[in-house]
């Protein structure tokens, strides 16, 4: 169980611009000092947002990692849903999913559809 280490890595990355530059250049090198297993490293490097959500990463940390990878908001939400569909319910932590896989929870207003975020 190293959810703590995954979140610690993301916390440091989210708040440290120099680390973001280093990570962009060499993901594995920046991940090396963290106590992560192969599944976690693979999910981070991909990045597999759905797997990270399934592992229990706090959404307040995960959404910034998604933004760092230029993943749009609606796509970010969908990737988490896809992760639950593929890997099953959230394993631990407080960020479980409580709605149905196909529920539409926060529709984009019709006048703004197609606008970029």
């Amino acid at each position: 169980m190293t959810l703590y280490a995954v979140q610690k890595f993301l916390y440091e990355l989210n708040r440290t611009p120099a680390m973001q530059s280093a990570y962009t250049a060499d993901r594995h090198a920046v991940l090396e000092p963290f106590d992560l297993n192969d599944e976690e490293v693979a999910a981070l490097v991909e990045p597999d947002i759905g797997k990270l959500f399934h592992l229990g990463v706090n959404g307040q940390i995960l959404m910034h990692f998604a933004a760092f990878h230029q993943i749009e908001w609606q796509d970010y939400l969908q990737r988490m849903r896809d992760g639950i569909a593929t890997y099953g319910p959230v394993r631990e932590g407080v960020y479980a999913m409580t709605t149905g896989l196909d529920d539409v929870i926060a529709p984009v207003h019709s006048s703004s559809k197609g606008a970029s975020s």
Partner: protein
Amino acid sequence: MSLVFAGVCSHAPGITGRAHMADPDVRDRFYEAFRQMGDDLRAAKPDAVVIIAAEHFANFFMNNMPSFAIGMADSYEGPIEDPGWLGIERRQVPGNRDISQRFITEVMKGSDIAYAEEWKFDHGIMVPLHFLTPDYDIPVIPVNINCQGPPLAPLERAWAFGESMRRACEAMPERIAIIGTGGISHWPATPDSGKINEAWDLDFMDRWCRNDKDALLDADAYNDLQVYSDAGQGGFEIRTYLTVSAAAGGAQGVVHFCEPIPIFAVSCTVATYDLASA
């Protein structure tokens, strides 16, 4: 007494970052209420604004997580988020180390807190400032209550923290404003983002307006398990709201706006206490 303004507001990042995705009618009425709160805040002529936010891993992590923390610096940087993502430019925000230090010293007489001479603001503070003090011309004293990484401080301790802040305001010559940000029910940053328990929100705000301590600390309604079930993990942020209730010392409140905007992920809320009623 030197508490000159007390209120609460939402801080969800979508409020600024996803503005173009919302129904413009309800969004603009919300923005208007938010800016009006800023006008009222500035009319109270505070020397410093205490912003009690539930931050989201910008400064504090589970390696060393304070239940309560107060900033003590002459300036702060924010937002920590990508400015394009949040829709707010990165900038320096003024603090006041001297006022902070005296405020912290007074608060410590009633509550055990951490202080921090470094603090990066996230959306929990930057979104409210964007509407309340758009010129960033009033020193901020940032306050954090851990609402993210359980175990979380019991609501009774948040209430006591609010009372300590009230006494600190009374002990200081400066005019102090206190703003709580966050909540109410929400499931932020998850696939459930946009789910809102409107009835729960309105019931909570009713208790907040009455400033009914027993109702706000109701262990049946607001134990963490029940809050998680009824109001999501974002509901833990009610701590910031009820801390302001305690700081307001029995004053009665008014809700200026409280309507769900799902793409912003919350019942967008603006409410203030009438301090003259205390």
